[in-house]
């Protein structure tokens, strides 16, 4: 009898509950799965986005990529090497422990651990000093004008929780053991982890005790993330209503989706370009012997001007790209419209330049391209090969999956290659340092795989690293980019447009870093 009454009571409550609670469940999907729930373990876009539902950084970006306070209420540069952060009071982790300066110091040290893949985000930090429970000093090795811009992805972890569960260091693949933090979370953020089935489904629920609940822009109370690898199935899932949002709708389905769903277009902070080997005296993959044609600026310029990027935009990208002459996208600090101007498409001039440089019959060369990394990467390369052929350059296309492509070019085993470069700090130094500066230690020239080298530019970049006067610094950035463009150190192509697809009753804000911030999502 009692059992019957209980069941009846529960059934009645369940039946009435939709009227009492407006729970908004948000189901979304993209190609890959969230790799790990440890916020410092994998430096990958989707992984970072999902972990930021649970963990919060000191500083965040708003929708215009301006820095706004998050767990840090305010910050000031007390001296050229020290940034003092005042922390937000009354913030609790999901397990109830308070957020204090100890956790900040712990997080910085964890991210800098040898086994961490998040070291670049705490690059240049010498130590973190605790002044009082709500104040920390971050001390850097040298003046670092972009320190603040490195922090929006660094989620704060609880020192006591990490020590209790033995996860004071991020995943160490050498030991071959899975760590507790890979499947369990404890952050301060707007959502808590409810369940995790690897490669199947990850569910988050609203954190009722979130410190910023009153200002939450969106109304999502539950997030269900499912990876759907196959392109057609992902589209079908959105069309049939089984998911509310798809982060990466396949390009061939966009027209259909525009009719039945909402598509948000926006450019990504990633610029696609070609790099050229300018260091070797003789190219590895060319028929020119005894000299390197790519060392001649005229040849590089010819290759640039032979490319009709508008045709590529129309035919290959179906309108989904923004041609550019700059190595950075418009949202990145340091971009100017003048830098964004491309050299005109001029096949006649290209041919003339080649003749002038001493290649009246052109030459042969191999173009290395990934085929599963950027949007339509292989198709773009095929178009470029055809365009170069008209100018007399016979290029052989070598397209391969990213798993073989990246190791190859990272060994500098290439003559011409395609690369895309995203800028998570939204500041041009990130690109200049990695792509344009001559190779040195650390991040310097780490992706300058053609070994472009100009000492004037190097000097400027080294100053940009430490110059704290904004106006002066921006002028130097503009100068460096202009010299590099003049040298045709790389051949910029375009910025990708990354459309987001969602049901008509979902309102989301597009972000150039391709991260879905769910606490901004409103479901009507």
């Amino acid at each position, binding site marked *: 009898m009692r059992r019957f009454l209980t069941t009846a009571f529960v059934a009645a409550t369940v039946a009435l509950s939709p009227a009492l609670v407006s729970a908004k469940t948000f189901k979304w999907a993209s190609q890959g799965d969230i790799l790990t729930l440890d916020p410092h373990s994998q430096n990958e876009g989707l992984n970072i986005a999902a972990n930021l539902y649970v963990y919060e950084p000191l500083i965040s970006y708003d929708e215009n990529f301006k820095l706004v306070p998050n767990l840090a209420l305010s910050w000031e540069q007390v001296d050229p090497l020290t940034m003092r952060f005042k922390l937000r009071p009354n913030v609790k982790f999901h397990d109830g422990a308070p957020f204090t300066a100890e956790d900040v110091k712990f997080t910085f040290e964890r991210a800098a651990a040898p086994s961490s893949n998040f*070291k670049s985000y705490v690059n240049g930090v010498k130590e973190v000093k605790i002044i009082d429970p709500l104040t920390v000093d971050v001390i850097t090795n040298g003046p670092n004008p972009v320190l603040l811009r490195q922090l929006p992805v660094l989620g704060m972890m609880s020192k006591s929780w990490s020590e209790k569960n033995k996860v004071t260091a991020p995943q160490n693949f*050498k030991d071959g053991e*899975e760590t507790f933090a890979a499947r369990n979370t404890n952050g301060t953020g707007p959502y808590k982890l409810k369940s995790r089935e690897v*490669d199947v489904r990850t569910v988050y629920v609203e954190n009722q005790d979130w410190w910023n609940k009153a200002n939450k822009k969106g109304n999502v109370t539950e997030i269900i993330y499912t990876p759907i690898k196959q392109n057609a199935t992902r589209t079908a899932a959105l069309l049939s209503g089984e998911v509310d949002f798809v982060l990466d709708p396949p390009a061939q389905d966009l027209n259909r989706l525009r009719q039945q769903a909402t598509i948000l277009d926006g450019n990504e902070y990633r610029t696609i370009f070609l790099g050229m080997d300018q260091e070797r005296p003789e190219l590895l993959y060319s028929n020119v012997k005894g000299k390197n044609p790519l060392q001649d600026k005229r040849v590089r310029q010819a290759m640039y001007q032979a490319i009709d990027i508008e045709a590529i935009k129309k035919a290959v990208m179906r309108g989904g790209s923004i041609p550019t002459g700059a190595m950075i996208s418009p949202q990145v600090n340091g971009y100017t419209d003048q830098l964004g101007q491309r050299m005109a498409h001029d096949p006649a001039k290209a041919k003339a330049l080649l003749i002038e440089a001493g290649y009246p019959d052109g030459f042969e060369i191999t173009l290395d391209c990934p085929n599963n990394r950027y949007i339509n990467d292989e198709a773009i390369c095929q178009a470029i090969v055809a365009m170069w052929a008209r100018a007399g350059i016979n290029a052989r296309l070598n397209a391969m999956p990213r*798993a073989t492509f990246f190791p190859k070019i990272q060994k500098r085993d290439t003559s011409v290659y395609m690369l895309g470069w995203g800028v998570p700090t939204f500041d041009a130094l990130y690109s200049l340092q990695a792509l344009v500066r001559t190779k040195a230690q650390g991040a310097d020239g780490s992706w300058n795989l053609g070994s472009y080298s100009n000492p004037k530019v190097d000097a400027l970049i080294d100053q940009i690293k430490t110059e704290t006067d904004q106006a002066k610094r921006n002028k130097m950035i503009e100068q460096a980019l202009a010299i590099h463009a003049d040298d045709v150190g790389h051949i910029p192509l375009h910025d990708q447009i990354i459309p987001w697809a969602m049901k008509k009753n979902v309102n989301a804000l597009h972000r150039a870093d391709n991260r879905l911030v769910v606490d901004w999502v409103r479901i009507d």
Partner: protein
Amino acid sequence: MFAFIIRRLLQAAGVMLVVGLIAFSLFQYVGDPVSIMLGQDITDEDRLRLTRDLGLDQPFVIQFYHFIVNAVQGDFGISLRQGQKVSTMLLDRMPATLELSLAAAVIALVVGIPLGVFTALRREGWAANAVLAFSLLGVSLPTFLIGILLILVFSVHLGWLPSFGRGEVVKIGWWSTGLLTVSGWKHLVLPAITLSLFQLTLVLRLVRSEMLEVLRADYIKFARARGLTKRAIHFGHALKNTLVPVITITGLQLGGIIAFAIVTETVFQWPGMGLLFIQAVQFVDIPVMAAYLCLIALIFVMINLVVDLLYFAIDPRLRAGIGKVGGH
């Protein structure tokens, strides 16, 4: 009999060693997981450190030796993609693949055998010819096309069935089953049909041709002359004799279904071992790839052994000559 089994098991171990060797040597050419794991902000120091940590800088023979020694103890290392133990991952995903494969095999048999008998008995009828024509679709259309077609019709247009995933599953011990929930069954329908179509056609045509041949045999003629009922002849005698090759083929195909449910699992985002393998290949997750290939080799070898034993059980002629016939 005993000696026969022992001999086969030794052969199995040999097969698996060779498979492991070939698989491992192929991995030298599939790419480098380190650059994927470290992403864009990779520095040379980081790359060297991780390469050393993963043991990828050691010569091939050493890597293979470590792999075999660990594998024999059941330790396949941890996945480079997700940091979990590979053996746990495979065990987690095995029920999904096995349930899907068995469902597909059951559909292939339950639909294929009766249809095969039907088309053999009613050879000239229009229905039989329609079934045969339709079955051609099963062999000529690629699996992913069938899957996407079914999703389009039943998920997007009609909205009757879900398009991806496995639905609600119930865990019994370490086995997670979707057969105990309504949503589990709903999710199973389309992938199982997709996966079964090829086998169904195979079984159908095999049963049909075997049955036609058996029906021409002398003992069938004599049974008819003797006055036995049609049913007794067709199902009591003819069908039993056609089943022997059918079982052999189905058994071998079952291994193929399990191993190559990859395409179906990818289309339907079915969380089985096949999908895990595809993701591992893209990420160059070498531990997972190696473990999967060894597991598949083991499954094939075991199934072949079981089929051979079943063969002996069914066919009395072979039981008598076991000493002489042995394996084949």
